[in-house]
């Protein structure tokens, strides 16, 4: 290739082995370097928000749970918190603890899943196989506790549907012990394996200023030194009774995001031990009305991928007036363009994977199309980062940095 300046456009997605969900990244390449990225969303619309308005609260609970497969419990709990706040339901303490246990187990399985996916994206399939093997322990445990591996269906208005039998507690601890040992191994691996470090560090840089500016949430933000965690800042469930550290890191790259997630796993094990030690006896549910009174509430939940925000407005009937879901990925996608700036094509999969994206959550959340409105092939939505980029450029200019000399308007072309 003598013509080194030739720009090649590579379509990554909507169907592509690097993406677990259908999204489209049009990547302009100069050699191996990324010149510009255009991102399109919207291959997964479901119309959840409108759907919630037309269903009863009981049905909504399961609909919301299916916003996301991996953080199903996060969405259902965030939703149920808002509804319970409107209804003025006081959830029994034991139910709160059980919810926290399930939520933290979900965090374990989500983070281990992420580690495996990250390994796969950088061609380290052995890491994928090992982490998913270990993750299986927590999946089976969740199936035993709740009745399913994902979409646990354990929440119900006013409490939880299933109690955790006393003889299950040692089982949970056994899994926690075993996974803690494995996680220590992975931390060691992440800090020492040369090829892993080479592929992860310095990749997908996102400075603290940018992370704050672009509204990044969750481990992605914490890896850029943003000290935010809804579990500590706006405590819910049993978190006020628990001691844990918010893991932050200053690497600001994919390596930092790995370290943060592994660190969070270690925190989660300690949280689970505390929960099992402290869980009180008592009822697991209070009676909830079918009609939720008029009122509104908004809840924040620290899902494994970042902060989940649910807003619910009740109108005194069996159906909510309005449900609004903000999945963490929507807040994080804005940062992907920034991270890809000046990167390599080879780094694209891991950079995208590093925000632990769940495009289906994102799409479902904004989705409004009900079945029957349109043929399914028309679900094309386009989103570019022009506006965000322009702001980014202006913002940096105001601070004496000019990216326009790179020939990349804000790093991303519209």
């Amino acid at each position: 290739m003598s013509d080194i300046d030739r720009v090649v456009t590579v379509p990554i997605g909507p169907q592509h082995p690097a993406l677990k969900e259908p999204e489209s990244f049009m990547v302009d390449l100069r050699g191996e370097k990324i010149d510009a990225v255009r991102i399109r969303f919207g291959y997964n619309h479901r119309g959840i928000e409108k759907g919630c308005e037309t269903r009863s609260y009981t049905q909504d609970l399961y609909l919301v749970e299916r916003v996301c497969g991996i953080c199903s419990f996060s969405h259902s709990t965030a939703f149920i918190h808002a509804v319970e706040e409107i209804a003025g339901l006081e959830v029994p303490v034991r139910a709160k603890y059980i919810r926290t246990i399930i939520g933290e187990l979900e965090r374990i399985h989500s983070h281990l899943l992420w580690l495996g996916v990250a390994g796969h994206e950088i061609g380290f399939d052995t890491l994928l196989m090992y982490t998913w093997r270990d993750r299986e322990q927590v999946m089976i445990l969740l199936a035993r506790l709740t009745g399913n591996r994902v979409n646990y269906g354990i929440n119900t208005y006013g409490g939880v549907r299933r109690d955790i039998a006393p003889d299950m507690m040692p089982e949970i601890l056994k899994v926690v012990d075993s996974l803690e040992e494995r996680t220590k191994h992975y931390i060691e691996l992440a800090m020492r394996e040369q090829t892993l470090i080479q592929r992860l560090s310095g990749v997908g840089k996102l400075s603290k200023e940018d992370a704050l500016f672009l509204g990044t949430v969750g481990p992605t933000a914490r890896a850029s030194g943003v000290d935010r965690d809804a579990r500590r800042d706006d405590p819910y469930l049993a978190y006020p009774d628990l001691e844990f550290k918010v893991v932050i890191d200053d690497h600001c790259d994919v390596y930092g995001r790995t370290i943060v997630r592994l660190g969070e796993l270690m925190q989660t094990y300690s949280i689970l031990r505390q929960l099992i030690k402290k869980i009180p006896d008592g009822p697991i549910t209070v009676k909830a009305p079918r009609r939720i009174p008029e009122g509104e509430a908004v809840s924040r939940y620290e899902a494994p991928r970042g902060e989940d925000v649910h807003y619910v407005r009740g109108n005194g009937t069996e159906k909510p007036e309005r449900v609004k879901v903000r999945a963490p990925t929507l807040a994080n996608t804005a940062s992907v363009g920034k991270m890809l700036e000046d990167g390599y094509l080879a780094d694209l999969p891991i950079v995208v994977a590093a925000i632990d994206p769940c495009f289906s959550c994102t799409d479902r959340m904004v989705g409004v199309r009900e079945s029957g409105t349109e043929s399914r092939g028309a679900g094309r939505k386009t989103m570019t980062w022009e506006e965000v980029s322009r702001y980014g450029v202006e913002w940096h200019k105001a601070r004496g940095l000019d990216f326009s000399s790179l020939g990349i308007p804000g790093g991303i072309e519209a």
Partner: protein
Amino acid sequence: MDVQAISAELQTRFSLPEGALKVQRATRLWVDVDMAGFPALFDHIVKGMGFNILCTITGLDLGADLGYIYHLAHDCGIMVNVKTRSPKGSTVKSVTPYFPCADLYERELVDLLGAHVDGLGPGPRYPLPEDWPVDEHPLLKDWTPKGATPAGDAPAAGAPAATPAQPASPPPAAPAEKGSTPA
């Protein structure tokens, strides 16, 4: 920071009417403000009080008006929900100068509720497809999908043909005037 203190400060500074401020709990404050007072209040909360997390923007269909709720959070955990409203068809000012990420949230308002956002730059539609009719806003209460049976009620036995629970089933009559491309 204390939610009562914030509430008192907003009360005195903006002389809000009775009932405009509601402390729901230690970390939740709801503020009702009319469109005229909104920019100043929003500016003060973001710049003056340091609420630098925009969780999301919720749009509401309130009949004749559109409601907007800006969910602003502070690092200390307190969340101020600024509620404002404007008649359908009037404009609301964009908050993207404060939060560039609000771009997506505001485009959502435009597409789903038909809001007019002043200061939102040109750009592609989001989240609806480019070929979606401009005057159809699915989250409006009076919007029903054409060709679909009203959903949500207990299903008529044996005939839940095209309910949202079953998105895979083809609609009984796909409206051709929507400019949709065939699947």
